[in-house]
């Protein structure tokens, strides 16, 4: 290309930029024009590693315009953003680029989009990775939608790297597609968080001809702080006292769903406009929450990592971590959401004593163990026909939620696939890749150590994060706690800490009665129990830790008995009230729960009866991983003694997990003529650790 041609091209691109920004004097940032040239003139594959807010969308909008002017088909943009930002679409329209979105929540608009694609009215088509992973969509809709695609853009492209901290199964399919895309078709991958290792991995997927364009990842004005580990009540108290004094809106990141929900309800209880956002939240709720945060209707969102990809709020002023994530890159990605368009913003890391346990849990469960994987794949290979989740559950002893997770991992590995009628073995050869599992696990351990280094470092925090991201331009930021030599203790008033303790003790949980047995057979109304209550979460900072030590010592103290009686008579107040108390028997430790139930009955001034007998010993429930096995383990293990009272009964247990024991005993009591059964337990261990 001659100098003259290069100049002409630059002028043409510049013209587009000015139209896009509606500003006659806007100029390209370093890297933008280079990326556009590589894509339009050389039809290369480009990897942009640039901080969020750098202007990646300008690159793909202008590239689209220029390619379209040269006769190319529309751009296919794969992005987890549910919809393009309205202001981005308006900007693109100023240079004649028309965008449309296809995702699961706008199905009614698809017909229109097809017609517009067919008549070449669309320049950029945005599709979510989750759509691309959908079988039916891929077979029926995509071929015509992508028919003349001229440019493929993959946003958050680091998610295709299974070495990365943020690997997403839906992206795995994009990796396969890139492999089948011939040279001469321009591809743009964008990410804000990738170190050399991830860049190398992505480069391998995108092909050797890849042109990486990397910029500095520093975030001006983001003030990083780290506090030493503190108990939950102290962190909660600090949040309640600090958040109202912070300007603007923010996010509190937690490691588990339960922690996010608890933080949200604590802050709400303290009069702060807070809401929880987790992978458990309904899709509508999540969209609504994102909207509320975007429009500043909520002060703070307590979120798990589920609030991540695709969320974009340039004026978010603080990101606080209630617990420490397991890798500096993941931390950078989350904390980097703060203050992109602000001169001043906060990134504050709190730590709990539970953090390492939770991180370890995530690392240890990221892959199925070899025997689990072989069991699942072997079963599906043997049956050949698709099996329902509950059928698989019955055969392999793996808990429902875990099994679902493992199937998804095996699906990524192309060993199994989901079809309309369940899960089936694919026709691909498969073997357990223990080398990869070991290598990725070792990498996670390394990242965990790096994170430990980050929290204890006395060097500049931002510089350290950037160097973990292999940012060659990392330098001291001058505004973090280390740069300012401004280390502080996590301070909160005794009064608020006491309130947090009371709150934790008061956050008893309700138990919904099970309505189906593990075979999904309905349990008749007249055999079900009523909704029950649990005093605490196993091992947490309220009553949970006290229950845990009581169980270990073989005796529950009077404080627990008092708290239980308070809960039942003050806050729960079941109506009609129970007229007697019984308990879940155990052969292994017959005294513990019996004694607890008797003392609670005494405190409530109700009679206690030893109404249920254990007929034979069962394996502890925690060794029985799934419903079908658990249920089989319990059924027939208990018998109700003759002539029990028929009034409503309080059924006491110490620790619940699956609720199957309570379900079975309640059903037997009801069949023996008892009017109502109210289950109660000191602690709940179920789902102790679930990430999103």
């Amino acid at each position, binding site marked *: 290309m001659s100098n003259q041609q290069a100049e002409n091209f630059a002028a043409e691109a510049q013209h587009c930029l000015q139209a896009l920004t509606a500003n006659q004097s806007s100029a390209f940032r370093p890297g933008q024009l280079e990326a556009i040239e590589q894509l339009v003139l050389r039809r290369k594959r480009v990897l942009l590693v640039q901080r969020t807010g750098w202007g990646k969308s300008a690159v793909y909008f202008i590239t689209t315009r220029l390619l379209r002017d040269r006769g190319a088909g529309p751009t296919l943009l794969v992005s987890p953003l549910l919809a393009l930002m309205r202001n981005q679409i308006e900007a693109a329209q100023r240079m004649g680029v028309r965008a449309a979105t296809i995702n699961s929540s706008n199905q009614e608009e698809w017909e229109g989009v097809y017609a517009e694609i067919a008549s070449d009215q669309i320049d950029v088509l945005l599709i979510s990775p989750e759509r691309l992973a959908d079988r039916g969509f891929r077979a029926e809709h995509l071929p*015509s939608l992508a028919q003349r*695609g001229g440019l493929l853009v993959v946003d958050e492209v680091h998610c295709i790297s299974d070495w990365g901290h943020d690997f997403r199964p839906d992206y795995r399919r994009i990796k396969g597609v890139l*492999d*089948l895309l*011939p040279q001469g078709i321009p591809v743009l991958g964008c990410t804000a968080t990738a170190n050399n290792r991830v860049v190398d991995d992505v480069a391998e997927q995108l092909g050797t001809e890849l042109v990486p364009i990397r910029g500095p990842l520093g975030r001006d004005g983001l003030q990083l702080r780290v506090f030493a580990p503190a108990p939950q009540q102290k962190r909660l108290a600090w949040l309640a006292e600090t958040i109202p004094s912070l300007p603007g809106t923010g996010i509190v990141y937690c490691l588990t769903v339960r922690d996010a929900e608890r933080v949200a309800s604590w802050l709400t209880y303290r009069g702060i406009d807070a809401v929880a956002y987790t992978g458990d939240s309904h899709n509508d709720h999540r969209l609504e929450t994102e909207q509320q945060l975007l429009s500043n209707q909520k002060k703070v969102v307590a979120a798990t990592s589920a609030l991540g990809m695709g969320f974009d709020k340039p004026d978010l002023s603080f990101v606080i971590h209630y617990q420490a994530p397991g890798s500096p890159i993941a931390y950078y990605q989350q904390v980097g959401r703060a203050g992109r368009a602000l001169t001043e913003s906060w990134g504050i890391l709190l730590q709990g004593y539970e953090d390492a346990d939770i991180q370890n849990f995530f690392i240890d469960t990221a892959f199925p163990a070899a025997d689990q994987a072989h069991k699942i794949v072997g079963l599906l290979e043997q049956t050949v026909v698709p099996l329902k989740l509950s059928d698989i559950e019955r055969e392999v002893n793996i808990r429902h939620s875990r099994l679902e997770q493992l199937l998804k991992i095996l699906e990524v590995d192309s060993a199994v696939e989901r079809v309309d009628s369940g899960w*089936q073995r694919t*026709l691909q050869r498969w073997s357990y890749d223990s080398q990869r599992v070991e290598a990725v696990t070792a990498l996670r351990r390394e990242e965990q150590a790096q994170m430990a280094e980050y929290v204890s470092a006395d060097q500049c925090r931002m510089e350290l994060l950037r160097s973990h991201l292999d940012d060659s331009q990392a330098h001291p930021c001058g505004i973090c706690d280390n740069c300012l030599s401004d280390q502080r203790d996590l301070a909160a008033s005794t009064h608020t800490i006491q309130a947090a303790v009371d709150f934790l003790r008061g956050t008893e949980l309700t138990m919904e009665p099970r309505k189906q047995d593990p075979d999904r057979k309905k349990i008749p109304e007249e055999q079900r129990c009523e909704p029950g209550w649990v005093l605490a979460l196993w091992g947490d900072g309220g009553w949970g830790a006290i229950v845990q030590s009581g169980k270990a010592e073989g005796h529950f103290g009077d404080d627990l008995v008092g708290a239980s009686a308070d809960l039942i008579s003050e806050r729960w107040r079941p109506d009609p009230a129970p007229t007697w108390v019984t308990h879940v028997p155990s052969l292994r430790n017959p005294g513990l729960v019996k004694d607890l139930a008797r003392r609670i009955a005494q405190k409530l001034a109700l009679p206690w009866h030893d109404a249920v007998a254990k007929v034979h010993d069962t394996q502890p429930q925690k060794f029985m991983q799934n419903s079908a096995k658990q249920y089989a383990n319990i059924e027939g293990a208990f018998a109700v003694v003759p002539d029990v009272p028929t009034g409503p009964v309080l059924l006491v247990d110490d620790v619940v997990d699956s609720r199957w024991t309570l379900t079975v005993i309640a059903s037997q009591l009801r069949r023996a003529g008892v009017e109502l059964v109210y289950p109660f337990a000191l602690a709940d261990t179920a789902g102790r650790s679930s990430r999103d």
Partner: protein
Amino acid sequence: MTDDRGLGNRSEVGQDSLAAVLMTSKLASDGVKPLAASEYWKRPELANKPSELLGASSQVLCNVHGLAKEMADRINALMDRSIAMAFELDRLQHSGIHTLTPFDQHYPCQFRYRLRDKAPVVLHAAGPLELLDRPGFGVVGSRDIGVEGAEVAKSAARLASRMGLPVVSGGARGVDSLAMNAAVNEHRAGGSAVGYLADSLERQLKQPDTRRAILDEQILLCTPYRPDGRFTAGRAMGRNKLIYAGALVTLVVASDKDTGGTWSGAVEALKHRYGPVAVWRGPGEGPGNEHLEHLGATPVSSFEVLETLLIDVQSDPIPTETATPLEAQSQLPLPLEISVNS
């Protein structure tokens, strides 16, 4: 760990393969007509090094590659399908369907040699691709077969299996499935089968028995058509070619005369020399068998004769060098004369 595949952007050969798919595949082909095999093979400027055409404008295709304007525009439009095609190929790959072109290691090299310009450019296959690496023993016959004919089909398949040859057939009802099942049932002898389908490959792959046999690496199913396509008479004939071309020798167990797919397939194979044809001349034969012998098919009257025939064809294999487009220009003589020492 998933299967290797030749197709892809990793290698030059993979790029050629992708380019060949883009020009000829009927996948993702709304509004633009893919090249027929003959259109592709007749143009060495396309078929020799198709990857050179990737990313080329119509102008370059005319001026540099010497294509007529109309053809250049058509190739250009076909290449524009790259992104949609990548998604389609990945989707098939994910459900266990591989896509092969003459540039791939496992594409049966004798196709180009025997079928010349009718050789399919794109094949979709599910199962162990290694089964395509060596020609097998073809068994064909009508769908409605008597008890004796059925026994012949099964015994012939068992014999081939014990001799280490995959059974090649059409996957239809009757002789096809009897022979293929008999081969698969010879699992202790390592029996295997290759089925060239005229019917939907995707639908066939929903059958539990089929999945079982594929997972056990005993059968490979292959089609030159869209994997979601339907059966038509034209497809059945196109598929018959592949059976004859894909086998060392093909035995016609029972055929009607002057009618039916078996008859026309065998006559066509004899006429165009798609591959050596043998015909069963014993109990269970069909009304057309005698006439096929008159038309040049090698008569087989007993399993001893068949065994000798199979030993002979194995010791006198067809040339195996890859049939490149250039070779296609010089049509080599085919070793069709098979002497049976009985």
